[in-house]
């Protein structure tokens, strides 16, 4: 089957580009690491191109079913297949828009702090490698390539979280690296066991073969993958590493991680559990985990005085909302989870970018040492208020739209899911309370003087009013994207509805990958 004899389709080639283009960009930015301008142009051009391709993939996948490309012409399940269905194309598009906005923000932060000519050998290549890993994780059709995608993503993130920071931050970064390596080791073991039990790592082939192995073994494999993605997605009680590591990263890096990494892991969880381990009716264990995650995250957020730690706990809390969608395990709830993931990616990245802007001005992340920003920086107040209301899920924001879908699906699914739906509302109220506390402390009250930068040599410049217009524009752009989710809620929830039906039905995906005509 190999060789130039097998024909390729233009669409199939397009499917490989969201992975290959960022890698190509990474190569170019390493070779041209002396030219800051080249690096910036390459990064932005690549991400704009990937976003455009993702939009095309989404339209085509929605119109005519999943797009499949067999790499090297080796047909699945022997070769590696890339697959774009509605869910993966949608999340790829949203993620790429977020990485684009964060890149613009990061570039302008560097220009503001270090001048136009400063080039860096590590930042741009690693950023683009991380984007390539994210694209590959969304598009891959087999478990081992998913592992490779996670490694690509995580290895780049190790560099981004520890580069040019203080000793304290590197210590926090070590926690992140060690926990991630542990979960990767477990992931690799799980892949090996899955292969030993079934003889394949292709998702579509696994969907059929998983039904043939003993139920006990199937449960163990399912739980192993749950733990692996549970660590990476910060599901309570496996979340402990997240509030310790994310807040210590520089603003744009924290925004990138908060927006993407946990959601890619949730996507992997959603894909593997629905495709490989389908079940009838609600999943009790996942319902319990969802409740724990929502409550521990929201209550943890109330106890924080550090703005970034508070946002990290809220991030954990809202992972629980998506888990609830997965736990109910029907087409409506899974589609609600997909929509919530799209909303969560944009809003968390926005909040961390705003937190970066606030920190730059006040010089601290401690809530009790800032105040009165409403008079000093009214624009910042607006930029904080909109995503905060969106995260809390106040109508008519995107958060409300996304949460409504989850609540309706939960209430219709039986008594226990309906109780958990009540916890969703409680966690939303706690989120609102936590964010109102931030508002009161940061934006109201007397004006406090900015605290001078304690370590001027590290990546994070603080205590300065200098923030360039593009940094604000990038943040505002993400807010606009989040508002667009609310404005186009009708077509979007129809789209995720179809995506959710595909996930539960499984047939379109399996048929597209394995095919009958091949």
């Amino acid at each position: 089957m190999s060789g130039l004899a097998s024909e390729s389709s233009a669409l199939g080639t397009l499917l490989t580009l969201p992975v290959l283009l960022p890698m190509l960009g990474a190569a170019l930015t390493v070779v041209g690491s002396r030219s800051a301008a080249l690096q910036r142009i390459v990064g932005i051009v690549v991400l704009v191109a990937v976003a455009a391709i993702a939009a095309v993939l989404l339209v085509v996948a929605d119109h005519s079913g999943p797009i499949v490309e067999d790499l090297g012409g080796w047909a699945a399940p022997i070769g590696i297949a890339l697959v774009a269905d509605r869910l993966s194309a949608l999340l790829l598009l949203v993620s790429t828009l977020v990485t684009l906005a964060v890149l613009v923000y990061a570039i302008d932060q560097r220009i503001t702090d270090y001048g136009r000519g400063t080039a860096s050998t590590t930042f741009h290549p690693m950023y683009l490698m991380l984007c390539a890993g994210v694209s590959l994780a969304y598009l891959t059709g087999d478990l081992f390539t998913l592992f490779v995608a996670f490694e690509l993503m995580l290895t780049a993130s190790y560099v981004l979280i520890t580069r040019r920071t203080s000793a304290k931050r590197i210590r926090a970064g070590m926690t992140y690296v060690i926990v991630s390596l542990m979960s990767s080791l477990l992931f690799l073991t799980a892949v090996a066991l899955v292969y030993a039990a079934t003889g394949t790592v292709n998702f579509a082939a696994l969907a059929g073969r998983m039904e043939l192995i003993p139920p006990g073994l199937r449960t163990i494999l399912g739980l192993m993958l749950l733990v692996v993605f549970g660590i990476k997605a910060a599901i309570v009680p496996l979340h402990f590493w997240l509030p310790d590591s994310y807040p210590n990263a520089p603003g744009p890096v924290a925004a990138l991680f908060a927006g993407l990494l946990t959601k890619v892991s949730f996507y992997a969880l959603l894909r593997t559990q629905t495709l490989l381990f389908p079940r009838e009716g609600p999943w009790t264990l996942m319902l319990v985990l969802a409740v724990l995650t929502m409550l521990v995250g929201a209550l943890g957020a109330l106890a924080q005085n550090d703005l970034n730690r508070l946002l990290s706990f809220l991030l954990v809390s809202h992972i629980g909302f998506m888990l609830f969608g997965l736990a109910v395990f029907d087409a409506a709830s899974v589609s609600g989870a997909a929509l919530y993931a799209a909303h969560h990616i944009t809003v968390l990245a926005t909040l961390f970018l705003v937190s970066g802007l606030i920190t730059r001005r006040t010089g601290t992340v401690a809530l009790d040492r800032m105040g009165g920003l409403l008079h000093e920086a009214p624009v910042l107040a607006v930029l904080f208020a909109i995503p905060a209301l969106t995260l809390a899920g106040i109508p008519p924001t995107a958060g409300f739209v996304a949460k409504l879908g989850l609540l309706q699906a939960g209430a219709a699914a039986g008594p226990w899911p309906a109780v958990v739906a009540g916890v969703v509302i409680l966690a939303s109220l706690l989120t609102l309370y936590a964010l109102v506390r931030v508002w009161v402390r940061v934006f109201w009250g007397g004006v406090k003087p900015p605290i001078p930068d304690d370590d001027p040599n590290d990546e994070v410049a603080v205590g300065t009013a200098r923030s360039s217009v593009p940094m604000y524009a990038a943040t505002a752009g993400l807010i606009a994207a989040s508002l667009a989710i609310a404005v186009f809620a009708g077509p979007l929830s129809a789209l995720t509805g179809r995506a959710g039906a595909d996930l539960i039905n499984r047939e379109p995906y399996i048929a597209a990958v394995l095919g009958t005509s091949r």
Partner: protein
Amino acid sequence: MTLLGGVTRALFPTVLVFSLYLLLVGHYGPGGGFAAGLVAGLAFVLRHIATGSAALGVRPPVVIGTGLLVALLAALAPVAFGAPVLATTKLAADLPLLGPVSVQTSLFLDVGVYLLIVGVVVDLLRSLGAGIERDMRDEGER
């Protein structure tokens, strides 16, 4: 000249040639771009230990980037011939002196991997070996 220096002088080109051999036979036998790159990297490690310098003539990041670029272009090249990404084929030619020669086009991808790995090893030597170099300079001054 120390004994190690002399041995290194003889071994360095030999190991590099061996790494090229591994690169070329990789498609059918043990070897390939990754293994060959590591072997070539070991040659640089040896030279670093013997002479205190692993200078490559170009900056290691450029080698890494070029390797990645070559590998990616090799992955994308089949598209120009109407084949899927990463597809391979056999190229056969009758060369003067060598006679009939055939290579798999996956060799180009391996060449990229080879360059990338050599670049990474030399970059590691440069950053981790900086302390050794400083110690050796201090020894010399004493």
